[in-house]
């Protein structure tokens, strides 16, 4: 049986060397094409709920790695959020905003507009940003050392114009 694959940040490769002409960016449509076709095939193989769980897990891993390699986890909370906002804009992932933040209770309400996964989608009637849920929970896990859940309560696909996430510490 083949060994499972363990992701490391180095696996992202050297884009400067690999794409000297095309550069390190591509279109959102191509990103979504990959993601939604994965969703299609996986949901047919494994069912919708299991597919959702897989996307959340992958997002969580991605969030933790992103935090470790791109963000400064030693910053105080306000500065950390400012850095996270700036990076998400710079990398064109989305525009992060905070609506509520309770540090003692470890409870946050975040919105992401122009979200990479869903902004501009037709209204499906359900939230679709499963990967983002994991991504956000992974970032908070890496920053605080505690486990979090992030639940999307509003999404472009449900008719809203920003994605809204309820983020809570699992212990709290």
């Amino acid at each position: 049986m083949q060994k499972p694959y363990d992701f490391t940040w180095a696996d992202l490769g050297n884009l400067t060397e690999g794409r000297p002409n095309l550069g390190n960016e591509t279109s959102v449509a191509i990103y979504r094409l990959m993601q939604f076709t994965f969703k299609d095939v996986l949901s047919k193989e494994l069912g919708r709920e299991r597919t959702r769980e897989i996307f959340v897990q992958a997002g969580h891993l991605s969030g933790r790695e992103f935090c470790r390699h791109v963000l400064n986890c030693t910053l105080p909370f306000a500065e950390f959020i400012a850095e996270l906002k700036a990076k998400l804009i710079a990398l064109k992932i989305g525009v992060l905003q905070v609506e509520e933040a309770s540090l003692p209770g470890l409870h946050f309400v975040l919105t992401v507009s122009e979200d990479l996964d869903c902004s501009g989608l037709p209204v499906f009637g359900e939230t679709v940003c499963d990967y983002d849920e994991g991504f956000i929970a992974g970032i908070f896990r890496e920053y605080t050392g505690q486990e979090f859940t992030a639940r999307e309560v509003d999404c472009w696909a449900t008719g809203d114009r920003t994605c809204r996430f309820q983020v809570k510490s699992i212990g709290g």
Partner: protein
Amino acid sequence: MNTGQALETIANYLAQAMARGLGRNGLVFPLECSAVDDRAGQDFCKILAQIFTQCNEAYSFAQAIANGELQAEVSRANIFAMPLKALQASLRHLTWQANQVAAGDLNQQVDFLGEFSLAFNHLIEVLRDKETLQNKYQESLQTINALLEKQATTDPLTGIFNRLKFTKLLEVEICRAQRYKSPLGIIMFDIDKFKQINDSYGHQAGDSVLVDIARVIKANVRTTDVFARWGGEEFMIIAPGCRLEQSRQFADMLRLRVGQHPFSVLQPVTASFGVAAFKPDDTEISLTNRADQALYRAKADGRNRVEVEE
């Protein structure tokens, strides 16, 4: 009614609504869809009626947002309310940001809100500049205060404590000695024939001797001792933890150090020492007086010696 008549009714209603505004009731669909003869007309009316409902709801939602009701809700399927939801999310975030700034967080920035972004970010820049300025003033104030404190407590020639500071520290040590019943010695010393040094070599040379003797003594007292210039060529030392005999020995050691030091003047420089030890009823004055009296006897008995209180 046929579809044409239905459309005419709707058009007339809308023309009036455009002229007078929506009013308290908003847009009211002006006919019963079932009254339209043909199916296609009925279906069209039903959809238009839904659009009227959405318009009314979006209008109420916009009004609520405009009134600052940031928790207002609107149905998800309302296509007219969608941009307003984005505005609502931005306003909620701005509310949080305003509270953060009020709490001192000057990392906040607003993105993609045009003129408002420029104004808010400019405000943050100004607040940061003011904070920087305030910090600089604070630092300058602290530096000035430290300097004033030093000037108020330090003898400008020798750099050691002055009489004022010494008196305050002696009060503290006396309190400590009374509280913990611990020994406390006090030494007063005076440079022998200092007037002669000044007359023979000039006041500059005299000052040099004062500076030198302060340096010698400072190098030989403990970190817990207090060393000060009492006035002129007189100096005082507080020796916490020292009884009378220990203080006497301490003073004698200092006397020898002074005698051995190569001063810049062409004559030996010596000092006379008076020693006293704290008694339970002592005040600063009574204690220093006894040291002073001992010093007087040291001078009278030949100088360059240590005498203890009687």
